[in-house]
């Protein structure tokens, strides 16, 4: 027998369940408890860059919208810097780059306001196209799903992006691209996420 290795095991995941809002968005569950809920303001008032809205549906394998999802977003600022001590560079005061959003209980639509991130230089010097990292939990999802949103008006950068290029099935790369439209209030990117079946979104093991 050899010496035992003394690593611990990661705590196993469990579904967030149907009442995730109580913990992470109590206002949506129907009550007011905290001084301030976290995650509603991603970019803060001082961030440079274009103000955008991102919206979409999460759709299940039957084609129905999922109405009890919680999504979290994690993104860099317009200069491509994450608000984190391990990423060199400064972000604007109030820029957190993290957000939390839930779906409308009746329609399944979700939306958040932020700024469009810039290209991100990775630790190895490679450049990733502008993107927002998304994490999706819900009843029936046993382990949170990671995906990325890329921007449809960044075709050239997307074509060079090392993560998009690593997707062997070229026809599935499109599932990570949000499409831009202009409204009176500004630019909107549409990003529907398909959990299963035709057009299934690419999810990552990160």
């Amino acid at each position, binding site marked *: 027998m050899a010496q035992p290795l*003394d690593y*611990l*095991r*990661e*705590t*196993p*995941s*469990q*579904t*967030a*369940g149907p*009442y*995730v*809002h*109580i*913990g*992470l968005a*109590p206002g949506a*569950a129907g009550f007011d*408890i*905290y001084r*301030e809920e*976290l995650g509603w303001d991603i970019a803060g008032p001082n961030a440079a860059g274009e103000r955008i809205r991102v919206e979409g549906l999460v759709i*299940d*394998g039957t084609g129905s919208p*999922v109405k009890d999802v919680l999504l979290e977003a*994690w993104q860099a600022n317009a200069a491509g810097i*994450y*608000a*984190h*001590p*391990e*990423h060199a560079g400064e972000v604007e005061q109030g820029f*957190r780059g*993290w957000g939390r959003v839930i779906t409308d*209980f009746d329609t399944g639509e979700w939306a958040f306001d932020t700024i469009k991130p810039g290209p*991100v230089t*990775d*630790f190895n010097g490679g450049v*990733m196209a502008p*993107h927002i*990292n998304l*994490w999706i*939990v*819900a*009843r*029936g*999802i*046993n*382990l*949170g*799903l990671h995906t990325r949103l890329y921007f449809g008006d960044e075709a050239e950068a997307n074509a060079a992006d090392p*993560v998009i290029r690593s997707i062997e099935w070229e026809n599935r790369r499109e599932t990570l691209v949000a499409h831009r439209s202009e409204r009176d209030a500004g630019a909107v990117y549409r990003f529907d996420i398909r*959990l*299963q079946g035709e057009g299934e*979104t*690419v*999810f*990552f*093991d990160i």
Partner: protein
Amino acid sequence: MPKPGEFYQRDRMWHPPALTRDYKTSVARSPQYALLSLDNTVSEITGPVFGHNDIDPIDNDLILNYAQSGEMPIGERIIVHGRVLDENARPVPNTLVEIWQANAGGRYRHRKDTYLAPIDPNFGGCGRTLTDADGYYHFRTIKPGAYPWRNWRNDWRPAHVHFSVFGSGFAQRLITQMYFEGDPLIARCPIANTIPGPAALEQLIAPLDHKATVPFDSIAYKFDIVLRGRRSTLFENRPEGN
């Protein structure tokens, strides 16, 4: 900019798989294609940072954080405490831990919960805190009740507390549930049993912690949480250009 250590590969044989037929809701919500393996980039190694400005000290006391003045929720008073560690057994300091749960009767304060057990006017059912420099956290709350749910015709969830934890990088993000030692409903629960093996399930069962009880006040349960660990960067033998 030197690359910080990547997170260890997540052991997906230890976690529940996406498709677990006895937990019916997973059937239409589980991806069918294989996940795409992605080496950690700066986007996965970094993650949101929280501080004491974000929360209030009372947020971790579910006995008082929604009670009307001079009143308290009904039920068994408990302390839930433990450490957040990584797979290298190092503490994870200053990380946000959020919980939510049903009241003592098994009812959630949620507009979608229609179980006939009553809402407790003095119990909200959520709390949040930051771990300290050694990774410790604690909550004071009421032991949640079991509740029925629509899966098979007569399924009951064991008493449980939902946990959400961040860690230092977005790749560590985790939501899970804590169960209570000795609960016979655990073995019958289709959600608890999405976990492939008994050893992994045991990691979600908090033991009674008699030493941490407060005499004539609160009983205690200990629940340690382990997030993914990171490689050390002592040696990097990567070929040029990779």
